[in-house]
């Protein structure tokens, strides 16, 4: 785990992620300016650091209602504004970028931050960016696989010899600067499905698994498939970290949490995906067996510990700010994580 800058003895890491969405607050109908949203994300990262959280990440989305298309630039600002917290993308769409440039950017962020940067590379859940950035969506799978392999190769070798279909060949190319310690953690972003997890396992790369809703037991199958694929390909699953990422909201009671969160998820998904979130499904989110971490701080502690028991994962990452959630609510959540949830999680998951 050392090469991924993880210390299992410290227990489950706790992080925050934002997709960088920029949506009106459904309760007021108002949307802050793009500039204000970007600054809010930087403040959010500082807040997470002050509360003792381990990790903060920002996503790349090229479509309406998003503000962090240039997510690496926002991460660079966060690198400068923070001192301890790990920072990453969630995720970088490697398919539609040049891996050399992505590596240069993130290695630089790693140097600015003093060795805190990581890359989470994904395939994009929406495909509008292929047209915007000049790629053919029919190459969706191959673009990702080829460029992700190159990204991993650049991370492992300072001098790269490489040729492929979607980028000019590299001959004794030096990709600079190098991150602190020579390499940095690179994760593969995986949706809930086992097919993508199996690819991550076969490649022997850490898996960053995002999830919307559903039972923990179903996502356990995805994680099991990942580890099995890794083992079959000759990698040691015990050396491969797993992170899970999804909706989180803490309030005094689970009912209050549902009441406060629902409009943000439902209206936000309507605007970004074209369909709301069914109340019936959402109501099941507070069940201990559900992967959504919604409820009172005590219920959330129980949920996360249950997930840890099932998954044996190394990092949990909470998404709280979706859908135009006002900053005071984010502050309140970070405070509850820092004062109640995180100490309990560390106490029960740390190995002496």
């Amino acid at each position, binding site marked *: 785990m050392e090469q991924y800058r993880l210390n299992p003895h410290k227990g489950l890491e706790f992080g925050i992620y934002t997709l960088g969405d920029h949506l009106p607050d459904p309760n007021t109908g108002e949307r802050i300016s793009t500039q204000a949203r970007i600054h809010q994300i930087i403040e959010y990262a500082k807040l997470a650091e002050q509360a003792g959280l381990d990790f903060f990440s920002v996503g790349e989305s090229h*479509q309406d209602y998003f503000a962090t298309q240039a997510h690496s630039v926002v991460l660079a600002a966060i690198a400068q504004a923070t001192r301890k917290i790990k920072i990453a993308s969630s995720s970088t769409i490697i398919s539609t970028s040049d891996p050399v440039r992505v590596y240069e950017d993130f290695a630089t962020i790693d140097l600015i931050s003093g060795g805190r940067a990581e890359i989470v590379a994904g395939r994009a859940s*929406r*495909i*509008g960016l292929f047209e915007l950035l000049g790629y053919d*969506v029919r190459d969706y799978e191959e673009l990702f696989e080829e460029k992700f392999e190159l990204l991993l190769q650049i991370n492992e070798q300072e001098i790269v010899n490489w040729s492929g279909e979607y980028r000019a060949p590299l001959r004794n190319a030096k990709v600079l600067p190098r991150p602190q310690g020579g390499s940095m953690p690179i994760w593969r972003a995986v949706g809930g499905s086992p097919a993508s997890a199996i690819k991550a396992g076969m490649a022997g790369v850490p898996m960053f698994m995002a999830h919307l809703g559903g039972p923990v037991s179903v996502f356990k199958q995805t994680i099991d498939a990942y580890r099995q694929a890794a083992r079959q390909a000759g990698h040691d699953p015990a050396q491969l970290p797993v992170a899970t990422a999804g909706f989180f909201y803490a309030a005094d009671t689970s*009912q209050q949490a*549902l*009441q406060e969160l*629902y409009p943000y998820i439902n209206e936000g998904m309507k605007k970004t*995906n*074209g*369909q709301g979130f*069914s*109340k*019936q499904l*959402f*109501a099941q989110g507070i069940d201990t067996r559900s992967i959504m971490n919604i409820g009172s701080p005590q219920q959330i502690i129980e949920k996360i510990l249950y997930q840890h028991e099932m998954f044996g994962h190394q990092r949990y990452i909470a998404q709280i700010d979706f859908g135009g959630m006002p900053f005071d609510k984010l502050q309140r959540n970070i405070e509850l994580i820092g004062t109640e949830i995180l100490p309990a999680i560390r106490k029960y998951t740390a190995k002496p």
Partner: protein
Amino acid sequence: MNIVLLSGSIVGSKTRTAMNEAMQVLADKYPDVTATMIDLAEYDVQFSDGRNYLEYPGDTGYVTSAIMSADALMIGTPVFQASIPATLKNIFDLLPQNALLDKVVSMIVTAGSPKHFLMPEQQLKPILAYMKAHIVQTYVFIEEKDFMRKQIVNDDVKFRIERLVEDTVTLTETHAQIRETKEAAYDF
């Protein structure tokens, strides 16, 4: 209540004629209902390429968004090669998996022969069920002989369309009430 009438073929006139009849019943009997006719013959709809429906420009974006914002959908379809036409299947392919969740969907089927009576049961209903529609179980099946020069000439067909429209509106109202009660009970 917002009902979209989707005439699913770009070939021929029988399906559109039947859909016009349903539209007329809606206008006469349910003036509060907002009804929109979408005849695929009048739109240039592209094949599904996997993107989110919000990302399609032009006619494709218009048609998919209109369907997604409807409370109920009345689908008119002919029978092509013992199934629905590709134009109609393409509409389903353009939409998200559970696009018909909380929507009532009814069917009017036109065919050249009574041998196709079970086509909707075998070909159309499974798609609607997969997409989570509340299906109006009874459909109106109309044969070639019921049409003459773009008019319906069988009064029984007119009565059946009248009843189908009534069932569509009643079920849409009922499901809306059930949903309202159920959602209020969640208290969030």
